[in-house]
């Protein structure tokens, strides 16, 4: 599972990254978190508001700083549909 966080580096993106790390820890999953700050790469996903969370190249959230619990739920759902 590759998790990408789209954001230009403002506090919200850092917060989302932190919460994602927490979520992964709580689920005992070892996944790679990639931070995408380049606009060209972000544009490829079509998101309009940052920060955005992408799991295995699928956009699961945009424009919200999700809490660790919410992220954990999303990750679990993503694993089920694998």
């Amino acid at each position, binding site marked *: 599972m590759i998790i990408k966080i789209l954001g230009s580096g403002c*506090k919200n993106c850092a917060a989302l990254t932190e919460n994602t790390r927490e979520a992964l820890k709580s689920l005992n999953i070892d996944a790679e978190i990639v931070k995408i700050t380049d*606009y060209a790469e972000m544009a490829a*996903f*079509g*998101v309009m508001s940052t920060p955005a969370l992408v799991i295995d190249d699928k956009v699961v959230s945009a*424009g919200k700083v999700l809490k660790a619990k919410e992220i954990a739920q999303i990750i679990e759902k993503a694993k089920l549909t694998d």
Partner: protein
Amino acid sequence: MFILEWLNDQLLKMTWLSDLIKLLVENVFGLDITKQLGGSIHFFLYDTIKIFILLSVLIFIISYIQSFFPPERTRKILGHYKGIWANLLGALLGTITPFCSCSSIPLFIGFTNAGLPIGVTFSFLISSPLVDLASVLLLASIFNWKIAIAYVVVGVVLAVTAGTIISKLKMEKYVEPFVFSNKVLDVEQADLTVKDRAGFSLEQVLGIVKKVWLYVLIGVGIGAAIHNWIPRDIISAILGADKWYSVLLATFAGIPMYADIFGTLPIAEALVGKGVGLGTVLSFMMAVTALSLPSIIMLKKVVKSRLLFTFVGIVTLGILIIGYAFNIFGSFLM
């Protein structure tokens, strides 16, 4: 009319708070508020508390409204209109669509990808930081409704004009190519319940207060200093309404600054109290919010220099014109 004035005084100006603080400063601290120290402390406490209360309430209400207009929906709505109406709608929606300034570039890309003319996108991008509903209400609280409405009107006119000019100049070719080559993502709009919206609004309040509290304190601090410590003559000499260069000075001082608009409001209040022209002060506020150096730097990544300079040039010119106009005609609004 009387009841409206009463509401205005109680809810926006919070005269009751001013009186309460006056009692506190005079009876508990034992200071005379007509003197410098007492006056500054009164100004500082009253303005800080007033701004934070208003901020929280206003952001909550506005975020609630904003929850109905995510960028995806705004984009869809704008796609149905053409010409100057699209610009106007873009400018109006810019005032209510939520986005943190770090999203302005992805938003620009998203709008352009969906086929919206860049002029419309720019109208949106200009009005968004400039005409922020919460700050308009704060303006009404500090000055009065007529000024607040006038500010909204000129802000929207500026956004529409700038956007239309950019469209007419056919500057699409100055947008970086990669902006056009991507897919349009329509994230499913989950139906939000009242509880969802309230939760989102509360988050916005906490988030924004956390972000701006320092700017507000600094702004009120500077405002208090100006209010009570800096003599009118000095301020008048540099920024007086009659000085032709005051608007230019205010505008160019504001451009490189990045401060939250809520922090500039108490400074604006104090300066006007010392004889600085209303237009000069509004120019400063507009320059700080619409043309912040950080957002210009970000914009440089998606548009080429010529378009960037055109954008900055038009908006700066607009702000200068508005500044001079308000200085000349502002007395009718006060």
